[in-house]
């Protein structure tokens, strides 16, 4: 099986694609019996060092309904200068520029190693990137100060020609005019009144080319038609001004009475930000960066009233249908998100507060536009500061790791249809022959818009095999899929990345082993999880768990080897062996369990789950646990309570948290100060090792995880205890008192129980 693992890994590295099945069942019926759908995780902009700079435009299939791009899988007739489209079989003439083509003189896009290739388009206007800061001023003084500093710092990280704008909000919303001398000027909007884009543009004077109030800036408009907006100015010009302006930013001056929340007009502020960009820079890369320190308390999009005695909605309230403002607010933000997506802009949400900030309602702003969502306790934490800084990090080429306004188009060979996609995207509603009627995720289209993406943004794309059982595919036939991603690179250049893949068809009857062996259980787990999480947004938790269980049981029935009614005989092949365990942890994960999580936290977790690549997603589903001891080098251990031993240090990575846990003995030693004694230097090193490893992870990850350093009996140890498989609890006495780990005080079922149960159901002929 090593071959398949290598194959999968190689494909992922080259194309950024992981399929659940790497050999495809050749008929619809068989495909549905496979339980796990044919799907893939696609990382469109996967960072690749070896891509050739292709400075010309792609060659398209001439059939209007196809327009597939020339790729290594196409049949080429070098003599006739013809190529056959591998999707629609149309024969196409090469364009004149390709006259010199021959077997030995191939363009890059025909070379097999370039199944993924990127074209750089030279034409079209190059519009600068736009960064619009939307800043909450109802913060504690300390928080605001930290935020101001972060923002000021960010100015130095932005590309000099990028446009930057500032909107502040509290009870009112202020759109600051930059580049004013002598007096700082802002346009103020009531925080309670929603305005249409047209109204906003009228009020900001954006509809007329020359606003009378405008300070004279002769010749500028001609130089660049876009720069006419007074509210968005190139960083290099107003660097100083904006730094001062941010420095002078005051807390919202309106008094907040005892027992009240500050009035926060987040809804209107976002609406204005969206309207401003909509009027000035439609369809160019732009980030609206919302920094908020609390829930919206007034106007459209309000999440909670300003009475402190009324707490913000909890899951309990939502289940009881007690969340007064939720539906309306959600609708408001959805509407904004859709508008933003239409304009090709994105909204980032940086929410830092101890209580909830309304991420549940606002989530779609980030989810639909590909924006970031960052949740922290305060702007004055390294979590926020580092994360924010990391947004402006650069890749090895010196380019920002962000791309904008992408369109992902998927083309399939005729045996396949597209069922949908799950990820930070919106549908472009492009129907076509390869669009399935059965939707999984965001379906009904062959194109999606991803307003902002980076090297790790990953979509799950689901397919349907439509080949009928009675029309067998000839032996050795391959199905092909082409992913075409057009986007605006951070250098403002437009680029097109094309990935074309092909997989073998196999008959499920005769080649069952092949199909089974080509199962990618990691990808499958993540893809199923995405489906589950996607459904969790709209359905009740228990239903989804039941659905997941049922799928798992069916899969086990299909691929397990067992004797009927004999659970002990149940076996799964290697390619499936881990899958039930993933499902077990997925069931316990915060993506599906809302217990102990606020609605905001759930939204936050789900947001990241729906956009991270396979590795990160797996970490989220099943956190990684490393054990450090004097007995040897650090080793990964089971995520199980039995791994919690007194003489070990554990390092757990859940993606959102990095937990270092000192076992009981270790903790006592540390308390006794052995690490400071020269003769116990090795203990010092032992203590240091997980910290160093944690730092490594912290440095690399976005958003920066919460870093927790705790020990046996520490209150923070709950982060670890809640994740591990409760193999030992106060209920199963056999482990009690033994030296095999720590009991977890929970009623949750352990993996063992889960597996036993699963086996029983799988072998049962009843179900």
């Amino acid at each position, binding site marked *: 099986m090593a071959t398949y693992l290598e194959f999968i890994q190689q494909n992922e590295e080259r194309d950024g694609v992981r399929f659940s099945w790497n050999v495809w069942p050749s008929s619809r019926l068989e495909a549905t019996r496979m339980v796990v759908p044919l799907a893939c995780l696609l990382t469109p902009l996967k960072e690749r060092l070896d891509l050739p700079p292709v400075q010309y435009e792609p060659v398209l299939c001439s059939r209007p309904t196809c327009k597939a791009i020339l790729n290594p899988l196409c049949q080429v007739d070098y003599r006739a200068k013809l190529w056959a489209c591998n999707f629609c079989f149309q024969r196409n003439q090469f364009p004149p520029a390709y006259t010199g083509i021959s077997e030995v003189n191939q363009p890059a896009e025909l070379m097999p190693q370039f199944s993924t290739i990127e074209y750089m388009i030279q034409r079209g206007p190059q519009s600068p990137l736009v960064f619009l800061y939307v800043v909450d001023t109802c913060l504690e003084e300390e928080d605001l100060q930290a935020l101001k500093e972060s923002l000021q710092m960010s100015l130095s990280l932005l590309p000099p020609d990028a446009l930057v704008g500032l909107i502040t909000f509290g009870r*009112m919303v*202020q759109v600051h*005019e930059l580049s004013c001398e*002598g*007096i*700082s*000027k*802002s*346009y*103020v*909007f*009531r925080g309670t*009144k929603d*305005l249409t884009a047209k109204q906003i543009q*009228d*009020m*900001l*004077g954006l509809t007329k080319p020359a606003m*009378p*109030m405008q*300070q*004279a800036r002769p010749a500028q408009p001609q130089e660049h038609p876009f720069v006419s907006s007074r509210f968005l100015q190139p960083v290099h010009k107003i660097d100083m001004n904006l730094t001062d302006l941010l420095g*002078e930013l005051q807390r919202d*001056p*309106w*008094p907040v009475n005892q027992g009240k929340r500050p009035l926060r007009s987040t809804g209107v502020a976002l609406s204005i930000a969206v309207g401003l960009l909509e009027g000035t820079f439609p369809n160019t890369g732009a980030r609206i960066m919302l920094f908020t320190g609390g829930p919206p308390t007034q106007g459209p999009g309000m999440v909670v009233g300003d009475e402190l005695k009324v707490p913000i909605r909890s899951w309990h309230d939502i289940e009881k249908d007690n969340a007064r403002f939720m539906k309306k607010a959600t609708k408001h933000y959805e509407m904004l998100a859709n508008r933003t997506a239409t304009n090709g802009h994105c909204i980032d949400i940086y929410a830092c507060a101890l209580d909830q900030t309304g991420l549940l309602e606002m989530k779609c702003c980030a989810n639909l536009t590909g924006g970031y969502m960052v949740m922290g306790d305060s702007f004055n934490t390294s979590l926020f500061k580092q994360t924010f800084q990391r947004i402006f990090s650069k890749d090895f080429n010196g380019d920002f790791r962000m791309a904008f306004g992408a369109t992902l188009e998927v083309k399939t060979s005729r045996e396949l249809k597209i069922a949908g996609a799950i990820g930070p995207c919106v549908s472009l509603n492009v129907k076509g022959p390869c669009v399935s009627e059965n939707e999984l995720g965001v379906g009904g289209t062959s194109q999606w818009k991803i307003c902002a993406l980076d090297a790790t943004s990953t979509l799950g794309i689901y397919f349907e095999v439509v080949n009928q059982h009675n029309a067998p595919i000839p032996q050795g036939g391959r199905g092909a899929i082409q992913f075409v991603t057009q986007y605006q690179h951070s250098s403002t250049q437009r680029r097109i990345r094309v990935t074309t893949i092909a997989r073998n068809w196999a008959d499920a009857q005769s080649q069952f082993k092949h199909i089974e062996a080509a199962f990618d259980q990691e990808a499958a787990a993540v893809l199923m999880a995405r489906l589950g999480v996607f459904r969790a947004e709209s359905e009740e938790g228990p239903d989804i768990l039941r659905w997941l269980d049922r799928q798992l049981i069916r899969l086990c029935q299909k691929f397990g080897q067992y004797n009927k009614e004999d659970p002990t005989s149940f076996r799964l092949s290697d390619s499936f062996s881990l899958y039930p365990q993933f499902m077990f942890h997925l069931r316990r994960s915060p993506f599906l369990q809302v217990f102990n999580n606020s609605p905001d936290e759930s939204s936050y977790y789900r947001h990241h789950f729906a956009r991270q690549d396979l590795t990160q997603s797996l970490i989220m589903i099943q956190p990684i646990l490393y054990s450090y001891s004097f007995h040897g080098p650090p080793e990964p251990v089971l995520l199980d309570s039995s791994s919690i031993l007194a003489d070990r240090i554990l390092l757990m990575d859940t993606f959102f948290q990095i937990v270092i846990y000192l076992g009981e003995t270790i903790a006592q030693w540390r308390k006794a100060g052995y690490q400071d004694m020269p003769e116990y230097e090795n203990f010092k090193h032992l203590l240091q090792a997980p910290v160093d490893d944690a730092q490594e992870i912290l440095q690399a990850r976005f958003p920066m995880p919460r870093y927790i350093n705790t020990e046996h009996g520490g209150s923070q140890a709950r982060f670890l205890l809640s994740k591990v498989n409760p193999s030992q609890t106060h209920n199963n006495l056999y482990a009690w008192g033994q030296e095999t780990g720590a009991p977890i005080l929970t009623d949750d079922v352990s993996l063992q129980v889960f597996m036993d149960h699963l086996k029983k159901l799988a072998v049962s002929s009843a179900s």
Partner: protein
Amino acid sequence: MSQQGYVATPPYSQSQSGMGLSPPLYGHYGDPSHAGAPPGAMKPAGPMGAAPGGVLPPGPPPPGPQQFGQNGAHAQGRPPQRFPGPPPASSAPPSYAPYPPATQSSYPSPLPPASVSQLGRQLDTMHISYGSGMAPPGQGPPGSLSAPSGQGPPPPLQPSILQPGSQVLPPPPTTLNGLGAPPMPPPGPAPPNAQLQPPPLPGQTLGSGFPPQQGNYGPQMPGAQLAYPGGFPGGPAQMAGPPPPQRKLDPDAVPSPIQVIENDRATRGGQVYATSTRGQVPPLVTTDCVVQDQGNASPRYIRCTTYCFPCTADMAKQAQIPLAAVITPFATVPSNETPLYLVNHGEAGPVRCNRCKAYMCPFMQFIEGGRRFQCGFCSCVNEVPPFYFQHLDHVGRRLDHGERPELSLGSYEFVATLDYCRKNKPPNPPAFIFMIDVSYSNIKSGLVRLICEELKTVLERLPREEPEAPSAVRVGFVTYNKVLHFFNVKSNLAQPQMMVVTDVGEVFVPLLDGFLVNYHESQSVIHNLLDQIPEMFADSNENETVFAPVIQAGMEALKAADCPGKLLIFHSSLPTAEAPGKLRNRDDKKLINTDKEKILFQPQTSVYDSLARDCVAHGCCVTLFLFPSQYVDVASLGLVPQLTGGTLYKYNNFQMHLDSQQFLNDLRNDIEKKIGFDAIMRVRTSTGFRATDFFGGIVMNNTTDVEMAAVDCDKAVTVEFKHDDKLSEDSGALIQCAVLYTTIGGQRRLRIHNLALSCSAQLADLYKSCETDTLINFFAKSAFKAVLHQPLKLIREILVNQTSHMLACYRKNCASPSAASQLILPDSMKVLPVYMNSLLKSCVLLSRPDIPTDERAFQRQLVMTMGVGGWRGGAETPRALDSCVCRGPHRHVSVAQSHPVARAERPDRRPWPAGQRVRAPAWCRDHPPPPGGGSASLKPALTPRLPCTVL
């Protein structure tokens, strides 16, 4: 007749039935009474011959005149005094001592013999017509009283004779132009008083038929002669010649307001006027005297149309004299008079009657050894609160009578307790918000720069309460064109911050902290801002403006800051930008002289009315400085300033070099003047009558509480009274006006003005106590109010009819019999016809297309809040309304020609040769130039502008 009341007042409405009959009186010109009065100098010019019975005996003996003067209301100048020459004159003044109220009259004593002699002549002289007729009854000799009654005979005649006159009446307004041109008689040195030209065909000679012509003194006086150096050559000539009298009115015969004013000034000027006596008629507003509060409010605060109320509603109906008071609660008192005392009862608050809630005042009668007091208004007996108890002396007065202002004075103030405050919280000190139109035209004309420069100075002089050194008033700044710009001028800012509010559809205040600031704390930021404003908008080419949102924003700002205040708005154009209160140019000359003419005076949209009410509810006063270069719809723009107790200033075609001085003076004056905010006024009366109607810069949400966003020293509220029972001569009629307000320093206070009037069952007493200035003020306001709802033609008719009815009633009931053709004027109303004529010619009531609509609306609104005299503390007190009204004839002609182009022309100058102006009533001099007019005023500085400017 159709003239149903444009006025709700009883006199008007009642008049209708009688009117048809009464007007007839009119036709005859009685010679002005004083025709007889004139000192020997006057020779009855031939003209009198015309009057049937009324040939003036040429030689009324010298004494006659004296009496005559005495008989007349105090107000009337006595010839003697004016003429230094005649020795008898000097003897007359002594007689002035007020009479003990044996009868009700407090009239100075005439020389009894004289009166007798007069009586004898009543039939044929003009005395009758003017104060003389009254005199007899007033003076009490029984005989004299009977005499008037004896005159009964004429009445029967009247109807028949009068009829023609009545027909004549309506037209006057139109004819006036020609006719009344000189309200002042051109004085021929020679001609004595005027006589009336015969009434020959009263009906036909429209012009002549009109009242204006009463004889007047003026001519006779030497002074007068001086005044008109140029003289009207024609005058003498006319006189000389045998009058062509038939049709023409002898100008000399018209009673001269100037003369009346001069006379009053001569008799009562410089004296001390003590208010101890009930029902005494105060000196004219033009007369400079020292008022001493001895239990009744100074006439500076309250003036009544009559100081003697008829006892019954029937009487009132019969006389049709409006019963009204013009209250200027914050009138300025000159420095030589005592300012109001402040009474502080601590937490207990003012002592009040339990039933009618009247405040403790001199009319409260203490009984039962001082343990109780009986309310003078409702007669309820109340316990005296323990803290307030005091023993009584032998005459039943409290021992502390002299120590407590509320027991001994007519006007005083109480410190209000929290119960009298909004939400039971002490008020915040008021704020001034300056709102400057920065549209293209204002920038271009330099106005914005001028304002900004001036504000730096003016802000140093914000009003303050005496004891506090720095002013408590906070200031804020807004500029606007079609959007609003608020400024944050918090003291800790390095530079001001501008906040633009573009949502004019639903305007709001973008900031709280830093918008309203203490000037001294934020001085440098404010100066920085004021320096920058003209620069900031220098490149602006925005022409459209909004208006209602500006007021709304100011009001919201005050509301947010929880304080009352004043908005000073500097505006120049018709607000055409898309926003609430948007206006279109609807000036339509075709409407003039139609029933729809009233539309021109009505606001274009209801937005402004509701806005004004909101403003009043939040104590937001709006003062508007208008700089129009074309039609700006003053009727709409001016509504909020009018209803919120603000002032409207208008500078047509503002030009920096010509008008800036005037504007700056107005601005300074407006900022510095005494003002109270967030006021509620309540007028309480003793039983038998009550206040029924109120005019002025007020809003009323019920029938009794007069709400005012602010009231300053120039603003008056006119209150009309109606009987609801009989009044008794013994107890008289008591009025208490209480104004609850917030001072400039943020204190809540109650200002109380009390006034006692006499009552009489005799019509003669009523007529004797009338005050023409107040009457005309009332007529003007009621007519100008009616302009909104009634055709102007009807209003003019009603005015004429009521005037004639009043005079007819007098003639019928009080005057001695005289020839039917003779016009008989009570002394107290001697100049009423002249004033009335002028009122009819005010540009508001004059329907002429060549008068700009804005000008008419402007004047209408101005007059609505105007006091009787605008006592401004100077020796020369402008008589705002009168002058406005009086000068109609002259001015409107010239205005028509000069406006708006010929700004430099000052029409009102021409009729008045220079010499005259010096001595003439103040309105001549004090008047600043017409709003659009040149700055060529004699005394441009410091005087507020008066409405007359346009006329």
